[in-house]
């Protein structure tokens, strides 16, 4: 393998894909890549040849034949190692096949953490090669391959240096240093003996060779010394240069001696590419043997509901833990694994795993094609179970609604809170439903925790939701903070879903949902910079409290809110009183104003109005206040299906909060200002409006909620496109004002950002399956839903 064939060397086997393995695709020929290796080869071979031709003969005669022999051997060693370093496959991983990453959809984490000798090491997802890079593996951008134990990409050999060829590279450096030193030394000897005849050709050539040798000696020796240190420390160049173990402990070191012996004496690692596949001639035919279950196993199966079994999934524990961090994502529509429909999925594992502490912060790799993995099916099922208890068909739409990436955090919150919520929620829901029946539509108490964008066509869903949301609000607040960090990347990519969620309530024509609350919730979350979906909505900013107050007054929700926790009511009362005092437009005005606004906007109007007034006073009570506010303000917003405001009073009076009687005043607070509508919209950008439309669509087609949800999951704008468009327009119009007035800078920036991005996404909908105007005519009805943290959201339906 002569080193002179540098060009062919550049196209050596190290980079050539081989047939049957899933090899990296061939890259276009780039001549510039071969310049360094050509130059290196030229200088190496050329200089040594000149040395042998001009210097060595005299040295051989003068001293001994050992001189050229020694130099010859060293040069041969240099060449051999140079060729091995150049042509040998450094340890390229073949691309993972599709089957392997079927469970890693775009919501899977970007990093997986693995513990190596007690040290946490991150494995990053390689989007090109489609697997999580093993420790010490890195993807070379020049070669476009993941290389095992990646050291660096050496341009002088035009090859990556990795596990397989590091030894040869290291020996090449050692031998080249020795060779340069020998050439320089013998050349110097020659010159010293030929000082008088320096003008002779031999001397001139020798001088030239000495110059080249001297020139290359410094960098080569430096690099050699550097690698000697690396080998002794057991590090790769990549790790050293990126400072991975700066001041820390290297988990891959075995001590100096063992590190050196590993580099020099270990057996040549196998090649992964270019192997001929040995066909397995195995016949697999049924009937298949089945293991005998021991009694203990059977008992365990009965008792653990498959949870323990789920914990033993084939997926590595790492993957499971990481995927559990994704469980905050909304579950996809329930459907079997795409590729293997026959496998029985054990979904309870996600439930149990969700109860564990959140894993290390994860970033989520964005992959454009989304295929619901088993995590999602599991989540779906878990949520389905949860939903079934509390609600009706709208839950499926709820689940579908929560499929948006922005909702990711919520499912986990819901799950954690679910047991407790259901207890309270169930009771509250019952009461609410009872109250609703009597009152003609109370505040929906039920909410699936963070996933606050169900279709609100079903009153029971609403009631269920608000109750659970009240319980989960505080929990959601905390959890969302924790989980939002992990969704950073995705949040950055798709900020709109949060907004969508927040606005989703606005267009819901189901009574009782507190869209504003949802929007409010989204806003604070957004302002905090977290990619919380608006679902959680536990953080009603003070601004939105006003709106909620107005909504609450009209709604029957206070009834169930009170049941939840009295402390919620008191702050609410305070707020309502304060809001009452601050702006007293009469309820009829408000209703008129609401009626004037498009259905989608109505809910937001009340929210936005009181905001500025109470923002600084009651921010700490916003959870509770919004909760109540919405309930109180609900009645005026309902166009038809809801009883007149006074019907809500029975709910309110049940609570200890007397100020409920101030419904009118509170309501009046919300009526007057169309701009506040924009404010509420400002919290949720156009993207949020998309979500709303989708939900509204679902709401309008409650019977077909499942279908709508399925469609909604796929296309944001489908069906309810037209309604969102109005919101978008309004948002664009109103936002600047509202943002300036109501939002702190972070909110503004974020909202503006999302605003800019989202309107277009909304306007590019899938084919509208449901005519969005269908729910518009209902207009004026406001549904209140209790969001996270006890805040009540008004959703104009």
């Amino acid at each position, binding site marked *: 393998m002569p080193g002179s064939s540098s060009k062919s060397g550049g196209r050596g086997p190290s980079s050539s894909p081989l047939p049957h393995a899933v090899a990296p695709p061939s890259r276009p020929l780039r001549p510039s890549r071969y310049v360094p290796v050509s130059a290196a080869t030229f200088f190496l071979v050329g200089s040594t040849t000149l040395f042998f031709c001009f210097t060595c003969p005299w040295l051989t005669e003068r001293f001994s034949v050992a001189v050229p022999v020694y130099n010859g051997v060293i040069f041969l060693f240099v060449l051999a190692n140079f060729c091995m370093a150049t042509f040998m496959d450094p340890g390229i991983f073949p691309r993972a096949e599709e089957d392997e990453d079927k469970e890693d959809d775009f919501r899977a984490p970007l990093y997986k953490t693995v513990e190596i000798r007690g040290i946490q090491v991150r494995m990053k997802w390689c989007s090109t090669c489609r697997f999580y890079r093993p420790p010490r593996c890195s993807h070379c951008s020049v070669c476009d391959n993941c290389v095992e134990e990646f050291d660096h990409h050496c341009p002088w050999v035009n090859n990556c240096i990795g596990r397989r060829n590091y030894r040869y590279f290291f020996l090449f450096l050692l031998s080249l240093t020795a060779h340069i030193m020998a050439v320089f030394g013998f050349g110097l000897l020659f010159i010293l003996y030929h000082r008088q005849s320096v003008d002779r050709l031999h001397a001139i050539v020798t001088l030239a060779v000495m110059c080249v040798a001297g020139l290359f000696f410094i960098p080569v020796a430096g690099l050699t010394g550097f690698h000697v240190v690396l080998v002794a420390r057991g590090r790769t160049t990549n790790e050293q240069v990126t400072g991975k173990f700066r001041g820390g402990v290297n988990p891959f070191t075995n001590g100096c001696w063992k590190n050196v012996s590993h580099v020099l004496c270990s057996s040549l690692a196998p090649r992964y590419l270019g192997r001929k596949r040995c066909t397995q001639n195995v016949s*697999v035919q049924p009937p298949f043997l089945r293991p005998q279950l021991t009694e203990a196993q059977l008992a365990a199966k009965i008792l653990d509901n498959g949870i323990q079994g789920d914990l033993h999934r084939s997926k590595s524990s790492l993957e499971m833990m990481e995927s559990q961090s994704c469980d905050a994502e909304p579950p996809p529509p329930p459907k079997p694994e795409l590729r293997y429909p026959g496998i029985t999925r054990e979904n309870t594992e996600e439930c149990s795993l969700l109860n564990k502490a959140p894993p290390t912060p994860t970033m989520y790799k964005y992959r454009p094609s989304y295929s619901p993995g088993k995590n999602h099916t599991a989540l779906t099922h878990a949520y389905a179970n949860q939903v079934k208890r509390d609600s009706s068909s709208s839950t499926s739409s709820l689940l579908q609604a929560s499929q948006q990436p922005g909702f990711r955090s919520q499912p986990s919150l819901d799950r954690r809170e679910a047991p407790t919520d259901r207890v309270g929620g169930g009771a509250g829901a019952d009461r609410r439903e009872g109250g609703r029946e009597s009152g003609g539509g109370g505040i929906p108490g039920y909410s699936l925790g963070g996933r606050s964008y169900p279709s609100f066509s079903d009153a029971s869903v609403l009631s269920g939701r608000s109750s659970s949301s009240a319980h989960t609000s505080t929990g959601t607040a905390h959890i969302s903070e924790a989980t939002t960090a992990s969704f950073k990347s995705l949040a950055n990519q798709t900020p709109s879903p949060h907004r969508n969620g927040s606005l989703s309530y606005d267009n819901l024509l189901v009574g009782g949902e507190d869209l504003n609350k949802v929007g409010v919730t989204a806003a604070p979350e957004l302002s905090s910079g977290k990619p919380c979906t608006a679902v959680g909505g536990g953080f009603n900013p003070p601004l939105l409290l006003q709106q909620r107050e107005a909504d609450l007054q009209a709604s029957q929700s206070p009834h169930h809110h009170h049941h939840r926790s009295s402390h919620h009511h008191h702050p609410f009362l305070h707020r309502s009183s304060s809001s009452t005092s601050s702006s007293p437009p009469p309820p009829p005005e408000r209703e008129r104003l609401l009626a004037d606004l498009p259905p989608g906007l109505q809910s937001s109007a009340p929210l936005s109005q009181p905001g500025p007034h109470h923002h600084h006073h009651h921010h700490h009570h916003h959870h509770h206040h919004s909760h109540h506010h919405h309930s109180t303000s609900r009645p005026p917003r309902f166009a038809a299906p809801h009883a007149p405001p006074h019907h809500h009073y029975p709910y309110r009076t049940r609570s200890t909060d007397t100020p409920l009687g101030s419904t009118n005043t509170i309501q009046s607070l919300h009526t007057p200002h169309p701009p506040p509508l924009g404010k509420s919209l400002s919290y949720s950008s156009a993207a949020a409006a998309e979500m709303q439309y989708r939900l509204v669509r679902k709401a309008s087609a409650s019977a077909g909620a499942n279908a709508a949800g399925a469609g909604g999951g796929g296309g944001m704008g489908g069906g309810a496109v037209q309604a969102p468009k109005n919101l978008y327009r309004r948002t664009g119009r109103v936002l600047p004002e509202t943002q300036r007035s109501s939002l702190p800078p972070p909110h503004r920036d974020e909202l503006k950002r999302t605003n800019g991005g989202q309107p277009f996404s909304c306007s590019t909908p899938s084919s509208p399956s449901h005519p969005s105007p269908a729910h518009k005519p209902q207009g004026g009805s406001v549904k209140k839903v209790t969001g996270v943290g006890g805040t009540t959201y008004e959703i104009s339906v």
Partner: protein
Amino acid sequence: MAETHSLQDLRHQAAVIAKVFIQRDYTNGTLCQFQTKFPSELETKIDKQQFEETVRTLNNLYAEAEKLGSQSYVEGCLACLTAYTIFLCMETHYEKVLKKIAKYIQEQNDKVYAPRGLLLTDPLERGLRVIEITIFEDRSLTQ
């Protein structure tokens, strides 16, 4: 692909239901070891002990392949002395053990896994990252 081969051979017999991936166990560094945790998908298909024994044997074999012993040392010296031309005629220690592993996997498939509707795939085909276990449909149950 080995899977394709086996599928082509077996299409008339059984269909692939799912694939289970046994990941690498990195707790001891980058040594090639696989996790012995029993995947839940295989619970109804194979005994836990059998599965663990298979993985443990594989782990032992891989440890033997990567061992820094006298054989690998001699091999390295010889290769240096012959300017690595010895690799053209001689098989490295690692490759020898890999052949042993391939034989072991084949034997396990024949004796243990195929009768249970499973198929082990040599992790070498996946870059020694995962052991792929293909689960086949049990037509006898569905019929």
